[in-house]
């Protein structure tokens, strides 16, 4: 769990909201669901080269997983790791179902009406991402399959998907340790498969802190040989900078990667 003494920044992301920020490598982000039924949509880009972005298929197949949880790394389309999931009390996060849209929200919970509803309007995930992406010169073409933190979507033997809302309880938390400088885009709008009888209006707590130094026993870099090679690709990307980094020594992955 998070050491409270290391917290550098704390923010409560209101429900139905969007936000973006640049996170430096060596920083960890702990996200906590304040109420049951929260969803946090997230996308990742390399601020130094915005064409490098989160790639859900690579993330899943590199780790032979359909769900995201502790030990997993979130990959860019260039074979590098944006961040590692170093702690997760929820156990299952979705990265395939995408976003709610204006049409979906309108059909299920009524229109997005700012004039009447003000901060309790029915904002949707797609418009939220689009608003933030545009601030960086990005647009609809740059939208990739996103992560939906705290949303557990299971798949039966026939491929049918269902959102397990019973798994989504209050006070769950996940910690992302950033392995690259990363542009993080996020929204707190409902999951597209939510069948809630009312618009789920759920805030989340976001805390930034300095990540502990990575050791040779690190769970994420040792999770599978693929992750060791992902860390080796990060190492190459920052070659020449690592020695000068005071906050973030690289793990020694050579013994894993070269096997």
């Amino acid at each position, binding site marked *: 769990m998070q050491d409270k003494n290391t917290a550098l920044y704390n923010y409560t992301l209101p429900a139905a909201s969007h936000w973006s920020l640049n996170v430096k490598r060596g920083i960890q982000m702990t996200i906590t669901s304040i109420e049951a039924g929260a969803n946090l949509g997230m996308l990742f880009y390399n601020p130094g080269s915005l064409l490098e972005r989160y790639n859900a*298929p690579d993330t899943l197949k*590199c780790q032979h997983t359909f769900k995201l949880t502790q030990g997993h790394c979130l990959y860019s389309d260039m074979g590098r790791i944006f961040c590692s999931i170093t702690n997760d009390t929820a156990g299952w996060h979705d990265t395939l179902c*995408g*976003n709610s849209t204006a049409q979906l929200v309108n059909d299920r919970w009524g229109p997005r009406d700012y004039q009447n509803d003000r901060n309790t309007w029915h904002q949707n995930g797609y418009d939220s991402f689009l608003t933030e992406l545009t601030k960086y010169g990005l647009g*609809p073409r740059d939208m990739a399959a996103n992560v939906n933190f705290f949303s557990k979507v299971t798949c039966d033997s026939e*491929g049918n998907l269902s959102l397990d809302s019973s798994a989504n309880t209050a006070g769950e938390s996940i910690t992302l340790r950033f392995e690259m400088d990363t542009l993080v885009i996020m929204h707190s709008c409902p999951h597209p*498969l939510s069948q809630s009888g009312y618009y789920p209006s759920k805030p989340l707590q976001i805390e930034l802190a300095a990540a502990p130094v990575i050791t040779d026993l690190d769970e994420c870099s040792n999770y599978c040989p693929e992750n060791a090679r992902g860390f080796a*690709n990060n190492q190459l990307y920052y070659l020449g900078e690592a020695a000068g980094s005071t906050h973030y020594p690289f793990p020694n992955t050579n013994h894993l990667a070269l096997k």
Partner: protein
Amino acid sequence: MIKESHYSAADAIDCKTVMAGNYYLQEVKAGQVIRIVDSQGNQAADTLFYNARNIEERYSAADTIQMQGNVYLTAGSKLISSEQNVMLEIVADTCGRHDTVGGACSTESNTVRYALEKRCMHACRDSWMLAIAEHDHLGLSKRDISHNINFFMNVPITQDGKLTFEDGISAPGKYVEMKAHMDVLVLISNCPQLNNPCNAYNPTQVDVLIWDAA
């Protein structure tokens, strides 16, 4: 769901063979039908679709999965765009299941999946890079290379959340056929992957046929 086509190859207006490691880029008009044939079995045809009149609108795996509530594609599946429109519908399928979770191979992901030494081996996303570079007038760039369909690939998902790569359920001559609901650009990388047991380490040709609206 297995569903046979009623189209005859003799009536096709276009028929092309795509060798493994090559790309196929073709416009298919609304109402036309396109068939991809796994000619020699267990090949992966990594495929992207764009609205030919507005390339900003493109195939969206997330929207397709979300709207049909199912991860696998087969006869009856509607392929949904990033603007939630139906681009194409699968009207025949003798394979029974196609993947849209696993994405395409790239030189970069090969380093992670297989070995750092595999960096320079040929990969699907390199075929797509060449395709869009050689067709500059279309206005496509790397940002448009997104989450694709793997026709003929079998990527089962387990109930406890694992992703497995199984032997193909395809076989020589199996095919998938789609009817276009809008003018679409079809961009296929016939997968050159030499490291994946799915194709028995032996990538082979696919054939692509087009019929006019009946």
